[in-house]
């Protein structure tokens, strides 16, 4: 991979991580208020979104491929990535003291919440890509106009 491609991957990974931290924090606020309102946490609880986001980001990186994947291949990889995240989060939920997994609906709600974060993060990244595409289109129009007027490609 060239320096530019590494840079692109780093930007995308950091963007995904930051997005996941935000969405997971929101999810924890909603689920906590609905299912375990009276619980009091120490400051360590602030690490949770950072750790869960890291799990999500690593799972996405594991299932990432440099190969040209078909739409079907992509969907399969995404499904594996989601299963990996769901499995890890539920494993943590069943073993960590901070999540009351013994209470009814906590684990299903958590699984549903993880799915919602997964879908939302993809949607937001799609909108970011759409913005990038708009910029590409503006640059493309300028490029085509320049070439029509006879400018060389390497300026």
């Amino acid at each position, binding site marked *: 991979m060239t320096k530019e491609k590494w840079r692109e991957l780093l930007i995308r990974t950091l963007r995904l991580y930051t997005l996941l931290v935000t969405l997971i924090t929101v999810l924890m606020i909603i689920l906590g208020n609905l299912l375990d309102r009276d619980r009091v946490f120490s400051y360590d609880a602030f690490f949770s979104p950072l750790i869960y986001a890291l799990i999500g980001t690593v799972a996405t990186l594991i299932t990432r491929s440099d190969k040209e994947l078909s739409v079907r291949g992509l969907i399969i990889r995404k499904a594996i990535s989601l299963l990996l995240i769901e499995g890890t989060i539920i494993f943590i939920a069943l073993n960590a003291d901070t999540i009351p997994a013994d209470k009814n609906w906590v684990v299903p709600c958590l699984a549903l919440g993880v799915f919602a974060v997964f879908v939302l993060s993809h949607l937001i990244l799609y909108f970011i890509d759409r913005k990038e595409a708009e910029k*590409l289109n503006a640059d493309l129009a300028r490029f085509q106009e320049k070439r029509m007027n006879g400018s060389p*490609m390497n300026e």
Partner: protein
Amino acid sequence: MKLETRKIPESEPEMVEIRYHWITDEIQEIISFVKSRQGQLSAVRDGRRFEVPVPDLFYAESVDDRLFLYTATDSYEIRMKLYELEDLLKNKSFFRVSKSMIVNLMKITSVRPALNGRFSAVLKNGEEIIISRKYVPALKQILKGGESL
């Protein structure tokens, strides 16, 4: 094959003359190369040879070790490797968008996001092709007036 070059006065037109006994693959390759330098590609469709003007090309795609050229409505096969064609069309608005395809940037109507961080390009004939994520940084650079690959 004997190679002969001769310096001529500027008043005379430059020319390439090929003397042959039979048109072999080697001769055809040389003819194709010279024609491509003049803005035409020698390609085959339905067993007939055509001279395809480079500006008419939309994209070129390599399928199972065969290279195909696509214009707005027709497709042709050309006896060349994709990287050779890419090299030949360097500085002619052609850009590598995936492992198996180069596209004429002048024939793209718009770019839009596809799945998994990839982009797709809608061509002027309505066709849609995928731009692989790994080529996007280079595309951005070229469109901004930077160096080609």
